[in-house]
């Protein structure tokens, strides 16, 4: 009797250690190579470098805790979802309610730096105008531009991070780039808009 209990316990131990080995392998091959991308994305989602590092750390911890539920497919998408949830929790702790639809606010130009003709005229080089235009974008627009154009995410990956549909990513991104393009045109660095 005692022998069979020991055998069961020993089998369980073997299974547990097998699982741990498998979890480690999955984590090593799927999660560790994505740390750099996570750090880039977190930098685009937060204002401070230390916040970005904390957010990635939180993501890595959550990923390890739920590694046994991960099916091994699309690790980046899985990690970006975890990162987004971690970010939402952090944000919620700091700011309990979001009262406004961010896209509507963006269209009204609420809460962000406004275009200023002087800003555009001051630096007439392409990159300077791009920087100024980027800073003048509403946060929701700027985040999408940073995720796709600077961090190199696809629309689907950016949608995962932001927790919005892909169509919303596309719409924000295209509108944001049009604004950048219009500022370039205002600084005579791009052709004027051709047709309405």
């Amino acid at each position: 009797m005692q022998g069979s209990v020991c055998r069961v316990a020993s089998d369980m131990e073997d299974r547990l250690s097998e699982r741990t080995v498998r979890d480690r392998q999955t984590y090593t091959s799927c999660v560790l190579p994505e740390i750099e991308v996570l750090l880039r994305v977190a930098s685009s989602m937060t204002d401070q470098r230390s916040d970005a590092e904390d957010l990635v750390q939180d993501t890595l911890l959550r990923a390890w805790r739920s590694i046994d539920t991960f099916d091994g497919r699309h690790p980046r998408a899985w990690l970006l979802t975890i990162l987004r949830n971690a970010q939402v929790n952090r944000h919620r702790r700091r700011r309990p309610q979001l009262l406004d639809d961010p896209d509507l606010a963006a269209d009204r130009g609420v809460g962000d730096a406004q275009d200023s003709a002087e800003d555009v005229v001051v630096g007439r080089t392409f990159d300077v105008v791009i920087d100024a235009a980027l800073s003048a974008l509403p946060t929701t627009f700027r985040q999408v531009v940073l995720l796709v154009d600077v961090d190199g995410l696809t629309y689907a990956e950016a949608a995962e991070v932001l927790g919005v549909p892909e169509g919303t990513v596309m719409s924000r991104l295209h509108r944001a780039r049009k604004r950048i393009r219009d500022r370039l045109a205002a600084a005579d660095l791009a052709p004027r808009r051709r047709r309405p």
Partner: protein
Amino acid sequence: MIDELPWWRAMVGTKDMASCRQVGRLLQSYLDGEVDDLTARRVARHLDLCRRCGLEASTYAEVKKALARRGTPVPGDAHERLLRFAEQLMDTPPGQSAENESV
């Protein structure tokens, strides 16, 4: 030969080539590589022929390039710290790693 087509054919579009209006709608997704192969070919054919849309495409391509240049390299020390953190996590079974939250 696409170069022999009159300019108005590009504006209106053909079965194999998007119209100016379609390109206006698809251009950014095309430059982002987010359209299917057939659409990409139709847009590319149009851009070969239509100077105005070609200019628009060049402008957006330059904007994308300038934005990509803004990407700063990930700080090596932060990457190292996170890598070490992740490796340490693996010393603890996943279920018990909640205790490491403050790490």
